[in-house]
């Protein structure tokens, strides 16, 4: 019986053989070693199942917008699709997140938008990174019910948004369950007990 880790290794090995087959003739690295070569066989054959893990997950275009906000523009936009998924666009980081979370909760979407600060750790629990504004002309995500159901019990999907001290966009995204980093703790209540 094979498992995912071994199947993946075998698949990569096969792919390496295909990808670099032309280079086999010149194995300069052999000179670094001594002794006769002998073939190596992987212990177990590859066995692939044909179901794409994420095939059912809706393809999402995350085109983000942190650009200038016109005074007449709403803080966010939320569009419901016939299949139950929703597309959210954040126009105003400062004012959008609280009402947006309430809407997401009301729609049964297990995702939350949470403000993050430059104090959030760049490793450990928080998956926070700095991006250039030019890479994200729009802040837009589509969330699906099915996607929400993929999270294990107690884990919530989140999108963290904020600005670094130097004015860059801070973005965080993933699944998370308590204990949360201190910089997320103020939003813990929102994540754990969504407003019906």
């Amino acid at each position, binding site marked *: 019986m094979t498992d*995912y880790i071994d199947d993946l290794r075998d698949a990569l090995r096969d792919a390496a053989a295909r990808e670099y087959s032309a280079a086999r003739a010149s194995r300069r690295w052999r000179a670094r070693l001594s002794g006769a070569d002998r073939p190596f066989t992987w212990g177990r054959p590859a066995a692939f199942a044909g179901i794409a893990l994420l095939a059912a997950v809706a*393809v999402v275009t995350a085109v983000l917008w942190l650009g200038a906000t016109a005074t007449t523009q709403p803080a966010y936009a939320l569009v419901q699709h016939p299949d139950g998924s929703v597309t959210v666009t954040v126009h105003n980081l400062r004012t959008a997140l609280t009402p947006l979370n309430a809407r997401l909760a009301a729609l049964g979407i297990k995702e939350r938008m949470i403000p993050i600060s430059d104090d959030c750790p760049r490793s450990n629990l928080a998956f926070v990174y700095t991006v250039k504004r030019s890479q994200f002309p729009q802040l837009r995500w589509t969330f699906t019910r099915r996607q929400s159901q993929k999270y294990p019990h107690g884990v919530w999907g989140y999108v963290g948004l904020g600005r670094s001290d130097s004015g860059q966009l801070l973005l965080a995204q993933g699944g998370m369950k308590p204990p949360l980093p201190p910089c997320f703790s103020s939003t813990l209540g929102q994540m754990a007990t969504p407003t019906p």
Partner: protein
Amino acid sequence: MAVERLDRLSDEDLLVATAEGSPDAFGVFYERHIALVLALFRQRTGSAELAGDLAGETFAAALLSCRRFRPGGPPATSWLLGIAQNKLRESARRHRVETTARERLGIPPLEFRDEDLERIEQLADEASDALVLLDQLPPAQRDAVRGRVIDEREYRELAQRLSCSEQLVRQNVSRGLRRLRNGLKEAQ
């Protein structure tokens, strides 16, 4: 070549060997680092399934990039974790796990069963030692390694941020990674 001989090669040599036509070398590289990559992804996503999926895409991308890897530059671990970070970032941006590299290599989707998730959890637990060890490094090395390897910041930027020279940052990254490797060997 016998796998035990390949096992004696450094990470850098394994990547070079892969690009020069030894698929087994990449297998050894994979075996050496899969747990760390899984630990990183599980920590970031909280999900063994996502961690496994992202790890698959990361190693596929690493395989495709082997020919561009140049020994003498950043350590192979840093290079691999850099790819992992990119995949995580791209997947987060698209809100789905990237499959580009696997598709390009013709690697079919692999199915997860409960046993797979248990093994991923187990491997990730084992490698979490590395992430714990990172926090135990001397502050200068920890910040340098985290900044360079995890956050992928430029040496120049790190030097400014940490108020020291670029050379010192490079030194701290190198020493920190060496210390991590040694710590992991002891833990095993």
